[in-house]
């Protein structure tokens, strides 16, 4: 059984301008110790999927309308807030997007790092806690950890803060780490280091990783599985191996080509024409059809089903019917 299984998840946001179907029938699963990359452009529902898993949707607008989120066999959608508090930070660690704003400015690093350990593992003694978080800081490769513990977030660099955040997410030995574009706010030079760090931690502790990004080539490098999301739906998913070999959905392909290769100079970056659809006014048929170079009549009439091109590779596109 998979560690995380999302089945037909619908998460809607009820806003002044109408109902936004942020997550609209998403399904995917992640095995223990494996890595799944969730890819898509801004506003496609990636973050809402993550927040649904943690049940931390914006209140009161966001609501899980239907679907199941099975984590280790138990449905998180049915859990009470009290039960969820015991899962968040303990069995599911989260690395949010922006390290600059994710740490509380008025507490020092020691306080913020020891907190989940105190809550979830019941450790009380200051010395024990301190040794433990020093150890964690070493694991996330922060030099001079004893001194850093006394620092406040504003005294650390962005890369350092993101390491601290990463350290917090692994501090209670979770089964699953969710990383929401953890490198977007970092300098390019620090990004690669951080990604390597996440990979090391992931393989050393054999923890499952759900990595969200808009960078498909990065996902190809670090993940086992890929799911490409567009307008709240998964349009293509499968093993990295399969999808890298043969990227099928026109949207996935567009994502790959819009990232420039390092070794060639091109005048103009290829981009996807048009705008992602407004989620409260979705077009009829395939949501990508208005921007798709291969759109056929059928695409404008009905949303394509999921077609399996091989055992571990499926795509929602009429061209592969």
């Amino acid at each position: 059984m998979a560690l995380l299984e999302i089945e037909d998840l619908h998460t809607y946001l009820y806003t002044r301008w109408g109902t936004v179907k942020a997550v609209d029938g998403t399904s995917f699963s992640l095995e223990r110790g494996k890595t799944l990359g969730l890819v898509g452009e801004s506003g496609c529902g990636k973050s809402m999927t993550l927040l649904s898993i943690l049940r931390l949707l914006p209140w009161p607008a966001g609501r899980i309308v239907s679907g199941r989120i099975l984590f280790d066999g138990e449905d998180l959608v049915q859990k009470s807030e009290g039960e969820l508090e015991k899962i968040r930070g303990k069995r599911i660690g989260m690395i949010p997007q922006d390290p600059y704003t994710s740490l509380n400015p008025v507490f020092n690093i020691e306080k913020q790092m020891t907190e989940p350990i105190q809550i979830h593992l019941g450790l009380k003694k200051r010395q024990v806690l301190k040794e433990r978080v020093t150890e964690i800081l070493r694991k996330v490769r922060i030099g001079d950890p004893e001194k850093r513990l006394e620092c406040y977030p504003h005294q650390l660099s962005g890369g350092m803060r993101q390491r601290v955040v990463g350290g917090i997410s692994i501090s209670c030995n979770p089964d699953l780490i969710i990383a929401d574009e953890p490198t977007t706010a970092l300098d390019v030079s620090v990004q690669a280091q951080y990604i390597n760090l996440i990979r090391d931690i992931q393989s050393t502790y054999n923890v499952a990783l759900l990595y969200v990004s808009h960078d498909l080539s990065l996902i190809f490098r670090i993940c086992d599985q890929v799911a490409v999301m567009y307008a709240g739906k998964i349009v293509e998913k499968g093993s990295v191996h399969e999808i890298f070999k043969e990227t099928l959905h026109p949207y996935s392909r567009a994502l790959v080509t819009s990232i420039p290769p390092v070794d060639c100079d091109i005048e103009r970056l290829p981009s996807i024409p048009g705008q992602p659809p407004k989620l409260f006014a979705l077009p009829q048929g395939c949501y990508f059809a208005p921007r798709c170079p291969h759109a056929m009549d059928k695409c404008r009439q009905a949303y394509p089903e999921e077609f399996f091109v091989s055992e571990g590779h499926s795509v929602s596109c009429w061209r592969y019917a």
Partner: protein
Amino acid sequence: MRSFILRRLLQLFVTLFVFLTIMFFLVRMTGNPAEAFAPTDATPEDIKRIAAGMGLDKPLYIQYFLYLKDIATGSFGQSHKSLRPVSDLLLTHSINTIKLAAVTVVLSIIIAIPLGVVAAVKRFTLIESSIGVFAVFGMSVPGFWMGIILIELIAVRLGLVPAGGMSGPSSYILPAITMSTLLIAGLVRLLRSSMIDTLDSDFVRFARMKGVRKRPLIWKHTLRNALLPVLGFAGVQIAMFLTGSVVVETVFAWPGLGRLMYSALIERDLPVVQGCVTLFVFFAIFINLLVDILSSYLDPRIRLG
């Protein structure tokens, strides 16, 4: 931290000096105090004699230096009216004002913080809207009206507490309620919006992702950050209470600084006016210093630069 406080103390003295100088010349533009004291049938010679008795016949710069000397020695001169040393008057009246202000501030904080927090946490509920209505009422109701209504209802009709004057602890109740209404209303509104902003911040969301429970999340992670913008407002308000609310002290016949200042102005009792304003400036700067120290304690970004 020490050098920070020392620097601020130095600032305090410079500001005080500037204010004292401006005030010295300003009060002398309000007219001749000797005329206010002289009986209506006094001759110009009489008035001159009275002025000489007050030291007003000397050249302005001499008066100015005498004035500074009085302040430096802490005596603030002598009241024209009661002939008592101004320092005595200031001391007795400021203690009365400080006592009332302290009761008001403590009462306000005890009430306002839970209300502000609850209004933010229980957003979009009846609780929030009731607190909101109360806050708008508190901000808009004038102090003198509130005071009179309270006296009429609670002191006169029900006879529960004295209507005015400063006697036992029960005499604090009505003036403290009147003064704290505005402060509570302001604090609640400010804290509510500040809490809502902070509850929506990334670090609060991240704390929830760590599994922090609701109570510490609100009272530790959120409140400490949300208090920072509220502190400045509270400081200004507290400084205003310390300078004595003329309206409330008049309505409740409270022998405080506000009334002392008010009657001294009417009577052109210049040494008393000067003494009061000196004290007000000192209070205002002192409270500001206190607010700065408190915010730097709450926020390490201020403390550590």
